[in-house]
């Protein structure tokens, strides 16, 4: 029951008016980011990082803001899926299948409302799972020595592409680029400078917040300028809400199943929110069989994927907070923020920064209630914002990004560097090289190198130490599976996902 006490302390942190205000702001902006097609949660959080620095927020408030954005983006993704048949972000893909048909039948308002409830349920189940699992896993992580951590980071890299990932070569290239960037600066295990070329500004290495804001936010701006400059979308009609209480109750089993499956998919490495929503949709389809009319606007076809992807969003926080190994792009961005706030994730954080961890978890719970309120009575606001021309939005985002990065270090060198990363990110996305592995390489590469070095120092240079404990052998095995499975199961899963989506064609 120790956990409950910590959670209460967390509520005390999260419920201060100041933090509550930022949770509300984050939830609102997150939903908006989620519903703008093309702007995913990872980019959304990356865009908000400079704002946290501009305002000089204390660590717990900064983390509360960013996790609210994260949760909000997961909610928001469904809005354009339902109204426009364009997923707002990748995990909301499955919501198009039954959401858009519902909208066509004039039940758009119902679809939006029930999916908001499903998001709430999924997120609630996921957060409860997080509260129960995280402290246990954090204690378990204390038994990890350098060899086990090395195997764990190896596992993270092996499952980086994800089970459904296509083109593993591009993932490898991206991860290698991240690791290469991370080697610039002083090498802590030898004390020598690497790849600095005598430039003083490079001696401390490349700040990954710079890289993240550049790669995600600035490249996103460039994409917006290229593709969506000018007028906004035409307004969409929503229709009246006819959702009955009975209908909501009838979807409760679906919500529970979806949320739980999503949570598990979120915790597991390499799975993630997209797979979470896919699995819960397919499960629902097979459980209900002919009783449902999936693909034609079945209400449970909207509930299942939404509960799934929101459950997964909370689940993905578990490995990030307890082991320092993010399971998804967004959690990688959150990890970078934690590190730059000088907080080391892992078992130590649960004791030394308990106020931040539990404040963030409590904020997730509060954020969910806020999001439910934002997403049912106020849904009209977001629908209208969907049609705001980007020309009003872009200058604000650009300004915040520049001011924020400048306020971290007061160095114009950093600004040039960020622009460089932005242009680089733009080019890489044109080449369809994923950006998330770069960030993971940047974050996890040095940790992996450090732990390898430590393991070898402790064993006096004996390499067998790396697989000498049952735990590390287990991690090596899972890492091996992570490499092999995508080539075996990946094509099948991808085909199924594609087939499912073919039933309702996706444009954009």
């Amino acid at each position, binding site marked *: 029951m120790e956990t409950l006490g910590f959670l209460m302390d967390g509520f005390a942190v999260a419920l201060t008016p100041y933090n509550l205000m930022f949770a509300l702001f984050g939830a609102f902006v997150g939903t908006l980011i989620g519903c703008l097609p093309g702007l995913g949660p990872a980019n959304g959080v990356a865009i908000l990082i400079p704002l946290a620095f501009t305002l000089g927020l204390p660590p717990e408030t900064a983390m509360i803001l960013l996790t609210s954005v994260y949760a909000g983006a997961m909610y928001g993704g469904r809005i354009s899926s339902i109204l426009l048949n364009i997923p707002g972000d990748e995990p909301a893909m499955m919501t198009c299948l039954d959401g858009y048909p519902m909208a066509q039948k004039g039940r758009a308002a119902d679809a939006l409302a029930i999916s908001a409830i499903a998001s709430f349920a999924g997120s609630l189940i996921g957060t409860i799972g997080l509260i129960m699992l995280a402290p246990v896993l954090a204690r378990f992580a*204390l038994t990890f*020595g*350098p060899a086990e951590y090395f195997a764990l980071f190896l596992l993270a890299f092996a499952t980086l592409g994800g089970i459904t990932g296509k083109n593993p070569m591009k993932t490898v290239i991206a991860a290698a680029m991240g690791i290469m960037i991370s080697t610039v600066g*002083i*090498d*802590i*295990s*030898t*004390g*020598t*400078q690497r790849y600095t070329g*005598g430039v*003083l*500004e*490079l*001696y*401390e290495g490349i700040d990954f917040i710079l890289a993240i804001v550049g790669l995600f936010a600035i490249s996103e701006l460039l994409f917006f300028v290229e593709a969506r400059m000018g007028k906004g979308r035409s307004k969409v009609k929503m229709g009246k809400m006819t959702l009955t209480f009975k209908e909501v109750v009838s979807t409760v089993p679906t919500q529970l199943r979806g949320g739980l499956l999503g949570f598990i998919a979120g915790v597991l490495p390499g799975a993630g929110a997209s797979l979470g929503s896919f699995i819960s949709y397919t499960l629902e389809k097979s459980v209900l069989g002919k009783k449902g009319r999936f693909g034609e606007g079945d209400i449970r076809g909207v509930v299942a994927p939404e509960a799934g992807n929101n459950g997964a969003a909370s689940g993905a926080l578990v490995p990030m907070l307890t082991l320092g190994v993010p399971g998804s792009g967004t959690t990688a961005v959150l990890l970078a923020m934690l590190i730059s706030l*000088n907080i*080391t994730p892992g*078992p*130590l954080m649960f004791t*030394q920064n308990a106020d931040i961890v539990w404040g963030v978890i409590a904020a997730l719970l509060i954020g969910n209630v806020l999001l439910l309120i934002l997403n049912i009575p106020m849904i009209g606001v977001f629908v209208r914002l969907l049609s705001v021309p980007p020309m009003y939005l872009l200058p604000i985002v650009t300004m915040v990004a520049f001011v924020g990065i400048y306020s*971290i*270090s*007061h*160095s114009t*060198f950093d600004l040039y560097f960020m622009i460089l990363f932005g242009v680089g990110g733009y080019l890489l996305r044109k080449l369809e090289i994923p950006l998330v592995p770069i960030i993971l390489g940047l974050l996890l590469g040095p940790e992996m190198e*450090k732990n390898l*070095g*430590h393991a070898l*120092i*402790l064993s*006096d240079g004996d390499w067998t130490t790396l697989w000498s404990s049952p735990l590390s052998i287990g991690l090596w095995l899972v890492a091996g599976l992570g490499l092999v499975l995508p080539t075996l199961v990946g094509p099948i899963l991808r085909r199924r996902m594609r087939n499912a989506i073919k039933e309702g064609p996706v444009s954009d």
Partner: protein
Amino acid sequence: MFFKTTIAFAAAAAFSMSAMAWEPSGKVECLAPADPGGGWDFTCRSVGKVMQDLDLVSGSVQTVNMAGAGGGVAYAHTVSKRKNDEKLIVAASTATTTRLAQKQFPGMDASMVKWVGALGADYGIIAVSKDSKYENLNQLMDALKENPRSVKFAGGSARGGWDHLKVLIAAKAAGAENLPSIPYLSYNNGGEAMTQVVGGQVDAFTGDVSEATGFMDSGDLRVIAVLSEERLPGKFNHIPTAREQGIDALGPNWRGFYMPKDTSAEAQKYWVDAVDTLYASDEWKAVMKSNGLIPFHPKAGEFESFVTNQVQDIETLSREIGLLK
């Protein structure tokens, strides 16, 4: 304008300086060579505040952050662009002298600035977990003398950084040989390193006394030596010094200032006196107490030679462990 001048004169009179003495007019700049929130930033902001409270400066003290290269960017900036700015002081610490000694600021050395003074220090400690077989520093050092690879250390700095150097300073003073082969594991910060020692993965922790307070209070960590001249005040009083165990090793991580080289002798005297006055004030004693700083203040005129010696010592050590060629 007349009003301001009056105040300036009043302040000068109040601090018993002759009317002719040089004094900065208007805004004074304190350069913190790191991001806001770090140790140097703290030095600038707290000193700036106390200086204003004591009316040591007529105008305000503005803290400017200039991060990069562990202080190298600010050092280069002071040496090249601000070399005769008399209204500029720059925060420094042992990290600055370590990097200067190890030629981490390319083409620059410690003689290119004027060293003003130190305002307190955090002292180095060597600690083991509560279940460790080592009861005191001598036992630990005897083990090292027998086999340098037998005790593994963890610290929060890079290899060759201050935490690593403290181990070497102590080992050298104890008469251990083959210093480079003493295993040192570097972590991102002292907390991470301590967890590994408390968790039993590594034998001993090297760090500063302020970092260890939490684990020391909980009893998980046994501090076997502090690298100070005398026992520390207050609750740290029970920790034996290395000296009283017969090992003459000192490791103060001081905090202080330097200023540009091509400034007048009057300006230098003014800043040295200002730091002396500040150090003696009750206001500063309160700051030191609430932030875990321990008294450390070489007398005026001795600080420059203290810095030179420290740089010399670190350079010799770094050469011995092969970090410098």
